[in-house]
C-alpha cells in the first residue's frame, strides 16, 4: 500500500501541499487531476523522495520516505516516469534502462540487458535499443522512460504528466502503452490532463486544488452530477479542460 498521510509541503512561505491524504492499493489506478500549480508534481516528488516533507508521512509498503534508511527500499518499490523524460543523454536507450537494475538491484548485466530488450520490444522499440535519446522522437523517448521505470519491477508506477510534452500522435502511442499496463494490473499514480483517458483507465480519481485534495472518488462517481461534479471547482475544471 502507498500511503500519504496529512502531508504538508511549503516552498519558503508558499504552501504547496496542505494536509494531503491519499491511499493507493496494489492493483489500483489512481489519476490525479488539478489545474497547473495545484501541487500535483510536488506530491509525486514527495512520494519518490525528491522533496522533504514539512509535516505528515508517506509510506510505500510501510517504508517511510522521510527516513534515509527506508527511502532506498521505498524507492525500489516505486518507479517514476517524468514529464520531460529525464533520460541520460550519453547512454543508449538500452543503457538508460539497465543502469539502475545493474547498479542498484545488482542484476547480472546479460540478464538486465535481455530484459531491457524485451521491454523495448514490448513498446515497439525493439530495433532502437542502441539509439541515443537525441536520436529518438519525443514519443519514443517517453516509451524508453516507461521501460526504464518498469525495468525496476516497481510495485507502484508514478507518472507525472508523461504526455504533456508530446504532440497528439505521440501522446496516443504512449497512452496505448499505459492502457495495456493498467489492464495488466500495474498499480499507477497517474498525474494527467488527459481527462477522457483517465476516465477509461482509472479506478479512482482525485482532484487537487491549491494543495488540498478536494475530491477522492471512484471514477464513475467522480464524473456524476451528485459526485465530483457537485464540487463547483471540479465542474469548472472539467468544462474548461473539455473546451481546450
Amino acid at each position, binding site marked *: 500500500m502507498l500511503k500519504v498521510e496529512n502531508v504538508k509541503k511549503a516552498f519558503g512561505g508558499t504552501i504547496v501541499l496542505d494536509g494531503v491524504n491519499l491511499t493507493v492499493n496494489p492493483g489500483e489506478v489512481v489519476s490525479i487531476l488539478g489545474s497547473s500549480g495545484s501541487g500535483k508534481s510536488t506530491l509525486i516528488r514527495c512520494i*519518490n*523522495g*525528491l522533496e522533504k516533507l514539512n509535516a505528515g508521512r508517506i509510506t510505500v509498503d510501510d517504508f517511510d520516505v522521510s527516513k534515509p534508511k527506508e527511502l*532506498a527500499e521505498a*524507492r*525500489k518499490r516505486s*518507479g*517514476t516516469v*517524468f514529464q*520531460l523524460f*529525464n*533520460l*541520460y*543523454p*550519453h547512454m543508449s536507450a538500452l543503457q538508460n534502462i539497465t*543502469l*539502475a537494475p545493474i*547498479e*542498484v538491484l545488482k542484476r547480472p548485466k546479460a540478464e538486465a540487458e535481455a530484459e531491457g530488450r524485451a521491454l523495448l520490444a514490448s513498446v515497439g522499440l525493439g530495433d532502437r535499443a542502441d539509439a*541515443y*535519446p*537525441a*536520436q529518438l522522437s519525443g514519443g519514443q523517448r517517453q516509451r524508453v522512460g516507461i521501460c*526504464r*521505470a518498469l525495468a*525496476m519491477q516497481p510495485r507502484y508506477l508514478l507518472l507525472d504528466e508523461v504526455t504533456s510534452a508530446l504532440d497528439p500522435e505521440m501522446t496516443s502511442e504512449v497512452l496505448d502503452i499505459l492502457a495495456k499496463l493498467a489492464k495488466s494490473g500495474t498499480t499507477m499514480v497517474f498525474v494527467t490532463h488527459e481527462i477522457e483517458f483517465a476516465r477509461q483507465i482509472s479506478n479512482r480519481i482525485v482532484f487537487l486544488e491549491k494543495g488540498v485534495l478536494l475530491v477522492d472518488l471512484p471514477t464513475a462517481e467522480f464524473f456524476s452530477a451528485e459526485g465530483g461534479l457537485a464540487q463547483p471547482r471540479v465542474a469548472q475544471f472539467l468544462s474548461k479542460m473539455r473546451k481546450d
Partner: protein
Amino acid sequence: MRYTEFTPFDLWLLAQGLGVTVGLFLVTSLIGVAIGVLWGVVRFYRVPVLMQVITFVAEVLKNSPVLVQLFLVFFGFPAFFKLNMTPVNAAIITLSLNTAAFVYVIAVSSIESIGRDQVEAARVFGLSRWQVLRHVIAPQAMAFSIGPLTALLVNQLQVTSLISVIGVMDLSKIGANLNLRTLKPFIVWTAVGILYYLAAKLVATLGAKLEKRLRAHSAFRGL
C-alpha cells in the same frame, strides 16, 4: 662571462631545458588535475567546512600572480617555517596548486552543466551519490571539460617559464644563459619561442584528439 659563439653542445642544452620544462609541466599538470578534480568532488558532496576552505584557497590562487605565489613558496615559507626548499620543489608545489585552482573551476562548472533532471531521475531509481557521479555526471562532465582543460594546460605550459627566476634550469633559464653567453638575443629567443610553441601545439592537438574521441564515442547532442 666572456661571450662565445654557438656550439653544437648548445642544442643539447636547449633539449635539456625543454626536457625540464615538459617534465615539470607534466608532473604539475597531473598533480594539479588530480587535486582540482578531488576538490570538485568535495564540492559535489557538499562536505561542510572543507568545501568553504577549498573555495577560499582556489579564489586566492586564481586571483594572485603566479610569480608572487612562487616567491612566497620559495622564499617566504622556508624563512617563516624554517624549512629547506629546493627550486624544483617550490616550482612543483606552486604550479600544481595553481593548476588545481583552475581545474577546480572547470570541474565545478562541468558538473553543474549536467541537468538536474537527469540526476534526480538517477536518484529516484536508487543510485547512490557516488553511482550518480560515476555513471551519469562524470562521463558527460569529462566530455564537457576537455576543451577548457586543454586551453588551461596550454596556458600553464607557458606559465612554467616563470620558474626560471628562482633558478630552475628550464627552457627559459637555458635561453637566458645562452643569451648572456652569445649576445645573440634574436636567435636565442626565436629558437626558445619555437620550442615552446611546438610543445604547446602538441598539447593542444592531443587535447583536440581526445575531445573528438570522447564526443564521437557519445553520439549525442547537447554537449
